[in-house]
């Protein structure tokens, strides 16, 4: 677990950004405190997913620094940052069983099989996945699959931050409520730093201790939104 600081982050998907409009993100300065539950709220295309990518290391920022606690991780690989992420669509390994799916991140890190087994069963219990744990993961419903993606983050004990990128988009309306309270409950139990991206206000407000609202400053000809933290992100604290 760690405190995460983004310092003066700018990012552009172009190779030679010149103008302000070339940047998908400009001048981001945020600190995510250790153990906090944060929500990033804003319309699609405003740079929320890019921001997650920068924290996870899947995107490297054009300029600026990313700190986990006091360590500069800007140039560090995803795997060494010890982060977990749940995507918009459930990402599962179709041909594995539920158990193997959950064990995958641990086995990749060469953790002894006895520890793997106990840890997986613990997380499966937490997520109500115990039933049919040896079935093929592909046979589960969408919300079951999304729980697996979540579980793959929870099994690891070294996770600095868990990130959610609109994780309930494809979930059934009545399952949404259940999963959302499950998430809230999980956060209270594990106290990992969590960042939750959504465009749904209710989701953001029920999940997070703190909501960061992204507002598009102005619409640009290329239909890209530019985010300027200094004047367009308001913090809603509870």
């Amino acid at each position, binding site marked *: 677990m760690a405190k995460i600081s983004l310092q003066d982050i700018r990012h552009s998907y172009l190779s030679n950004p010149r103008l302000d409009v070339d940047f998908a993100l400009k001048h981001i300065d945020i600190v995510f405190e250790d153990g906090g539950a944060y929500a990033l709220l804003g319309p699609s295309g405003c740079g929320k997913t890019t921001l997650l990518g920068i924290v*996870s290391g*899947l995107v490297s920022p054009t300029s600026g620094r990313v700190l986990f606690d006091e360590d500069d991780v800007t140039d560090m690989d*995803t*795997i060494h940052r010890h*982060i*977990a*992420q749940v*995507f*918009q*669509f459930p*990402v599962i*390994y*179709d*041909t*594995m069983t539920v158990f193997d799916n959950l064990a*995958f*991140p641990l086995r*990749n*890190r060469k953790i002894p099989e006895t520890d793997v087994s106990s840890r997986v069963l613990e997380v499966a219990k937490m997520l109500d996945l115990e039933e049919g744990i040896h079935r*093929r993961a592909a046979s589960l419903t969408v919300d079951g699959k999304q729980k697996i*993606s979540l579980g*793959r*983050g929870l099994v690891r004990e070294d996770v600095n931050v868990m990130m959610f990128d609109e994780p309930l988009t494809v979930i059934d309306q009545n399952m949404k409520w259940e999963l959302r309270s499950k998430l809230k409950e999980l956060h209270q139990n594990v106290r990992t730093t969590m960042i939750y991206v959504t465009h749904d206000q209710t989701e953001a407000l029920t999940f997070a201790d703190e909501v960061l609202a992204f507002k598009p400053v102005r619409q640009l000809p290329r239909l890209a939104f530019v985010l300027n933290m200094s004047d367009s992100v308001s913090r809603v604290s509870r």
Partner: protein
Amino acid sequence: MISKSVKQSAWFFVIPVVFLVAFNALIPLMTVVNYAFQETFGDNVFFWEGLTWFEQVLNSDRFHDAFLRQIMFTSIILLIEVPLGIAIALSMPRKGPWVSVCLVLMALPLLIPWNVVGAMWNIFALPDIGLLGYSLNAIGIDYNFTQQPISAWITTILMDVWHWTSLVVLLAYAGLTAIPEAYYQAAKIDGASKWAVFKWIQLPKMKRVLTIAILLRFMDSFMIYTELIVLTGGGPGNSTTLLSIDLVKLALGQFDLGPAAAMSLVYFFVVLLICWVFYTLMMKNEQQ
């Protein structure tokens, strides 16, 4: 999948296709069946022969040899083309200007008439004036595909790999580009190695297109005729006489219509059977 409603009148949409395909498939098939079970001396007079021709064909060494050669050929090219095709698809860039260039150049062999493919490889492999044949002999390899069965086989297999690997590449590539980026990102986060990504993400996601690729390659290699007849003519001797070539030799060369027809039916049946078994296995695997 979209849910479908029951509507019997949908048959009207299908009738033209059924009619046209049936015209092309059933009438010739009936002709073949006619010849397979009967003896004729012309003038549309037929004598019932029963299963005589089938017994003759199924017991003949000639058919056994051609069949074995066919199985060997098809197995070898599948074992080369499928892994090679996957490997090339994996190493291709996902986007950028090179993709189009690669795809266009790779698809080129697929659109060359089959007799030209045979002629091209014949010219290419000629031991005295062909680029391949001359070069091999120049570096001291004794190579002559018109005289040595081994050389003929190598040339035939090279030709088929040249001709058809691109089909596997295109299919595998289509399967690969359809994998959402999130899978690779999740694998990165889970700390998966390159091999694990291939085994647990890329291969399962390519399964459907690879099934199509293997089926198409199986069918087409089992029916190979034109390229081969132009390249080797089935020779030297009978060394590259695969099923289709043997069949045509029997039907047109010797005008043994009865055995040829019986062989045609056995041949068609074998293709259908193998496709069906393969298809059923794949589907069963899917359901588990």
